[in-house]
């Protein structure tokens, strides 16, 4: 292992052979002082061997596809075991620009919040083109904002940085079904401070969004239901957090 840093970048990847090398080299180029771990979520292509070939990156391979929630949580468990102070989540499909990672880390370092989420809608110029997806995301964000009494503009953003306390919390329990929006609600209920910072997302490098348009309404209803139930869950009580 290379010299250990106190920041860990978690890159969940499921069949991202086309984009993973680009994502990793970009991260290595544009983020200094961070370790990178790729969580290969049971890919059927050669995502993990490509990631290993990049070098200087840790690769954890899940024996079967756990889904994004299980994959990301593996990263948080790894961060907890490695005693990292900050963990950053970056998707393996190339839509999160590596240049934005340090901005999120800086916000955590300045202790502006416990969770910092990169929002593509705070910038304003990066509107979702598809009407239905825009509507769905707006509704979701409005619902979450209402529930946690704080304005959230991009609840489905998977680009986020968290501090040590949140690493402990997420390593212990991470929502399975719709982790991005659900974790916002659950973390807010645990009393963590959440902050959004504007980021510019890139066009997806390869592959398609996991949310396709026809399933959009079904997705929305299910997420809303999950979030509604989340509001009534007892917040986690962790005593061993650093």
């Amino acid at each position, binding site marked *: 292992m290379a010299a250990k840093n106190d920041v860990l970048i978690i890159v969940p990847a499921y069949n991202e052979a086309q984009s993973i090398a680009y994502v990793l080299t970009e991260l290595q180029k544009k983020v200094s002082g961070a370790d990178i771990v790729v969580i290969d979520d049971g890919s059927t292509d050669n995502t993990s061997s490509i990631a290993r070939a990049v070098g200087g990156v840790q690769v*954890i391979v*899940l*024996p079967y596809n756990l889904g994004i929630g*299980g994959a990301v*949580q593996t990263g948080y468990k*790894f961060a907890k075991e490695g005693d990292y102070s900050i963990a950053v989540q970056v998707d393996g499909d190339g839509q999160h620009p590596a240049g934005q990672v340090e901005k999120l880390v800086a916000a955590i370092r300045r202790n502006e919040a416990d969770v910092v989420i990169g929002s593509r809608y705070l910038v304003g110029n990066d509107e979702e083109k598809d009407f239905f997806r825009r509507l769905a995301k707006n509704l979701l964000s409005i619902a979450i904002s209402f529930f946690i009494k704080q304005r959230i503009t991009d609840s489905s953003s998977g680009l986020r940085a968290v501090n040590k306390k949140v690493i402990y919390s997420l390593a212990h329990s991470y929502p399975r079904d719709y982790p991005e929006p659900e974790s916002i609600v659950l973390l807010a209920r645990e009393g963590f401070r959440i902050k959004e910072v504007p980021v510019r997302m890139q066009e997806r490098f390869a592959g398609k969004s996991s949310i396709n348009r026809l399933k959009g309404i079904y997705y929305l209803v299910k997420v809303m239901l999950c979030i509604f139930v989340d509001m009534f869950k007892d917040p986690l009580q962790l005593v061993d957090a650093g």
Partner: protein
Amino acid sequence: MTFLQRILIIGAGAFILVLTFELIRRRKLNEEYSLLWLGTGIVLLLFALFPSILYYISGLLHLHYLTTMLLANFLFLTSIVLHFSVIISQHTNRETELTQRLAILEWKLNTLERKKACTELEDGE
């Protein structure tokens, strides 16, 4: 309760008991999940052998009609299925936890082995 009804219910109860017993014997059913089914079989047998128990309970609950008895039966089966859903969820969570730990341990093992190979190479030089 007619004689035929009693025979049918005794048959059903006995069938459940024998089947459950056989599944445990073949190690296809764990004891912890079998109690429920053994209990169901025994209750059915008791009802058929001593119908007065059934009449007493239905009188107590004011369930005199077949439809309400059916509803009670439906509730019983629903609660069993729900119970199993809870168990399935529990197992899914445990499986996820184990998978994640396995993957992290595998990573650790690989890292150690690589380190060991490197030191052996250095020692050999």
